[in-house]
């Protein structure tokens, strides 16, 4: 860190001579120490997962949820400073509800990501605030059905003007990741937090862009990836928390919900099995090497 001591890193919104905003970069450092979070987008839904490091035996098991529901169809998981994550979620909820009050319907995931990106970016502009110490993954499902307007009491004409074009597609999964700078991208698979490098490597193997992975398999992959990402941090125990949003035909009917306990446990068992398998392979591999050296 050559910047330290030059004075350009002491205040937010100040550029250094080489065009960097150091306070934002330091905020990213806070993210890099947080528990790993991943999101997977597939054709029929989105999965969010997070590694919760157990900092004390006195914590109530299963409580302290880190994935939040923003609106019926949207969830957010953050890595970094947990209180900042909650601030971010509360803003997301306000945006979603204000969208509803204006447009009388659920906010599209892309629009929510855009608004939250703008919000986070605003916290890089002023010396009177600090940037968000979180990177957040936003997952949701835009309904593919023709939705009733909120508060609608009857239906309009069945035919004529306002009719829908046959075969036209709308709705689908959405997954976005928003960084402390306010930068955001859409993703097939997103990872942040301490184990993001390992998680990204695993996500890339999944070939998500081909959209062949099913939602159920994505749940298992997400669990496995969190377990893999935890390998470098093995001395600490952790809890796995997962949520999902499926299509209207799927298990959650377009809603953001916790992954059911049975499925979560099944996914965790599979994840542990996969890891044990890897370890054995490695050990065998190591033995093989030794023999070869001999």
């Amino acid at each position: 860190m050559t910047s330290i001591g030059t004075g350009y890193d002491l205040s937010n919104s100040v550029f250094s001579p080489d065009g960097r905003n150091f306070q934002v970069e330091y905020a990213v450092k806070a993210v890099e120490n947080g528990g790993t979070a991943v999101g997977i987008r597939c054709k029929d839904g989105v999965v969010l997962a997070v590694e919760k490091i157990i900092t004390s035996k006195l914590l109530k098991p299963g409580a302290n949820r880190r994935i939040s529901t923003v609106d019926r169809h949207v969830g957010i998981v953050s890595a970094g400073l947990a209180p900042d994550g909650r601030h971010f979620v509360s803003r997301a909820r306000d945006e979603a509800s204000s969208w509803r009050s204006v447009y009388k319907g659920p906010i599209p995931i892309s629009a929510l990501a855009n608004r939250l990106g703008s919000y986070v970016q605003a916290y890089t502009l002023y010396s009177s605030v600090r940037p968000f110490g979180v990177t957040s993954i936003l997952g949701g499902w835009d309904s593919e059905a023709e939705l009733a307007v909120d508060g609608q009491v009857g239906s309009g004409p069945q035919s004529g003007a306002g009719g829908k074009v046959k075969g036209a597609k709308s709705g689908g999964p959405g997954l976005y990741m928003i960084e402390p700078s306010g930068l955001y991208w859409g993703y097939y698979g997103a990872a942040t937090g301490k184990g993001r490098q390992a998680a990204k490597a695993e996500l890339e193997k999944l070939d998500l862009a081909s959209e062949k992975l099913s939602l159920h398999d994505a749940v298992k992959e997400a669990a496995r990836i969190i377990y893999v990402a935890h390998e470098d941090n093995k001395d600490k125990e952790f809890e796995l928390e997962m949520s999902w949003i499926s299509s209207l035909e799927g298990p959650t009917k377009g809603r953001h919900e916790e992954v059911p306990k049975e499925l979560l446990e099944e996914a965790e068992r599979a994840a542990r099995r996969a890891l044990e398998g890897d370890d054995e392979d490695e050990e065998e591999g190591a033995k093989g090497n030794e023999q070869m050296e001999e």
Partner: protein
Amino acid sequence: MFRNNYDNDAVTFSPQGRIFQVEYAQEAVKQGSVVVGLVNKTHAVLVGLKRNAEELSSYQKKIIEVDSHMGIAIAGLASDARVLSNYMKQQCLGSRMTYGRAMPVDRIVTQIADRAQTNTQQYGKRPYGVGLLVAGVDEAGPHLFEFQPSGMTQEMVACAIGARSQMARTYLERNLDQLNDSSRDELITHGLRALKETLSQDKELTVDNTSVGVVGLKHETGKVESFKLYEGQQLLPLLEALERSDVGETKEGETMEVDS
């Protein structure tokens, strides 16, 4: 001496991504006298050690009733705690007024946490210098939350904050298995014993320096047993129960030594 440039306000990250002003605020919590909280299946208990400024002065207030189903124990700046507890009282009354329902515990905790977070992200504000243990019951049962100046809150099975609280936490961790199945009175005794662990050699728990708050669900009916604060002479039976359990403990310890 090396001067830390990154600790002047709460809106500056250090190169490691830390916010020193918030960490210093957490230190203020450690200066406060210790409070302990713990839950079982039906009850949540808060116990606190009260300090007095001098021999003839009165003792601090460590436990505050927020509503009939909720109370808090404080460690750190008492005036900050008063601001937070007043806010909590108002919100709880508001919930009873508009919905005719007791405020769910997790919700009020989230609300003060969000307030605290705001103080760590804006220039000209300072983090709260107080940690809280929030104990209460709602439809989902008894709860205990820890609140920190950073805006971090966690639901706990048992917790202790304040000066020398590590000793109490160690006790709680060691007896964690017993807590869940303990009775209301046993839970109070566990709380007092955890509190006792933190005392320095020459100190002991008395009716003057101890405070106990209990809230829970009545065993028979499942209805709310209103928050009850035990202070002064009301503490006598509780302290006697503590003494009895201490005697039992030492006896057990002795026999075990003989056995080995």
